[in-house]
């Protein structure tokens, strides 16, 4: 047995205080990271073992801005997007970045994308986009790719890392089959499998896509045909968070280590599943509209199994 091969009879129950103290003797000064419940956890500075926990990573999600929409459910979708961005600008601690889960525009017109960019850029945050079905409506289907999809794979999927969290942006709004739901397709699923291969199961994963990856209400197309296959690849990971838009309302479900969450739109609300003849824009009293629109803030604290998601309406 070497002098560094510490003998820990209680290792199966996690890292003991004794082991921490022993390891410190050669870990030197600085933050000591260990693994607890499959998630990296800081044990604090060596010289002050109970130092304040790191604040973690905070990012924002906005969705379904539908710039260009001007129907009775909200005649000024650009105005409510601007209100959302103004709220983001007012957050005291600057978030690390923002994700946008699609339907940036209503009809994929160049002017709509221009207006969206002009407003969203005022937040002065990096924005990671995935497309909604409303972002692929231009004749040549090139505006989204030119503006947001450079460097991405296929129709616009990609992954990146931030603060030890692995983020995966997926596209489930192209090549939809008659009678079906959202669709990822074989090529993207293969890419996803490879992207996750060899990654430690303790890496927290955040997946974001436009249409919910779980089946919310198939009668209205609210689900992804091959979403279960994607979730299969994510099974071994200790912490998985799935963020979607498309349904213009907050919905959350926890299944094992996977948390599913949908964000509000910044443009108009849609009805709860099955409560209206169709999922079309829901007209509510003017005074109520802003209570149904909003943004989500997501906080990842090292050591916490689940990411904390806070939905904030534009008003109320």
């Amino acid at each position, binding site marked *: 047995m070497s002098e560094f091969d510490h003998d820990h009879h209680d290792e199966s129950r996690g890292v003991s205080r004794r082991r921490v103290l022993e390891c410190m003797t050669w870990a030197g000064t600085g933050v000591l990271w260990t693994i607890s419940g499959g998630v990296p956890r800081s044990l604090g500075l060596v010289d002050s073992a109970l130092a304040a926990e790191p604040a973690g990573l905070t990012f924002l999600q906005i969705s379904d801005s539908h710039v260009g929409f001007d129907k009775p459910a909200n005649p000024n979708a650009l105005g409510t997007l601007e209100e959302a961005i103004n709220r983001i600008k007012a957050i005291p601690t600057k978030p690390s970045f923002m994700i946008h889960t699609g339907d940036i525009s209503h*009809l994929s017109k160049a002017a709509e994308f221009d207006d969206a960019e002009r407003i969203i850029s005022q937040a002065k945050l990096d924005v990671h986009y995935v497309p909604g079905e409303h972002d692929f409506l231009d004749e040549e289907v090139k505006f989204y790719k030119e503006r947001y999809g450079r460097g991405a794979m296929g129709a616009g999927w990609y992954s990146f890392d931030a603060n030890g969290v692995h983020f995966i942006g997926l596209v489930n709004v192209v090549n939809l089959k008659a*009678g079906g739901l959202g669709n990822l397709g074989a090529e993207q699923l293969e890419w996803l499998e490879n992207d996750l291969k060899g990654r430690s199961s303790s890496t927290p994963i955040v997946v974001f896509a436009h249409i919910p990856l779980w089946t919310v209400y*198939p009668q209205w*197309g609210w689900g992804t045909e091959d979403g279960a296959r994607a979730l299969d690849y994510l099974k071994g990971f200790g912490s998985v968070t799935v963020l979607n838009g498309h349904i213009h309302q907050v919905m959350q479900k926890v299944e094992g280590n996977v948390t599913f969450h949908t964000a509000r739109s910044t443009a108009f609300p849609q009805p709860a599943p099955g409560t209206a003849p169709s999922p079309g824009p829901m*007209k509510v009293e003017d005074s109520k509209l802003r209570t149904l629109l909003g943004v989500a803030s997501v906080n990842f604290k090292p050591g916490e199994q689940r990411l904390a998601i806070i939905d904030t309406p534009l008003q109320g």
Partner: protein
Amino acid sequence: MMSVTLRSLGKFAIAAAISLLLGGAHAYADDTSVTIDNFTFSPAELTVKVGTTVTWKNHDDIPHTVVSAGKFRSKALDTDDSFSFTFTAAGDYKYFCSLHPHMTGMIKVE
């Protein structure tokens, strides 16, 4: 707005009831237009003669498309936009909305 929606739902229910009495959601003869309301093609099935032009019109506040694989494909139809296609060969033409694929319909050309 809500009352209009409920009224059209009522109308739809009555139309569905009549269709059931007639033995299926099937339209015949000179009816050459299909409307899109509440994410639904109506009539869902339409029978026409060879040479007929069928026109689809979108009444929803959300864009839709009309796509029949390998046969015809409309651009995105915004509110009150239409798309027409002339059927020159007999057959069953299944179609759907490529944005909301749960929306399906069929044109039978005889």
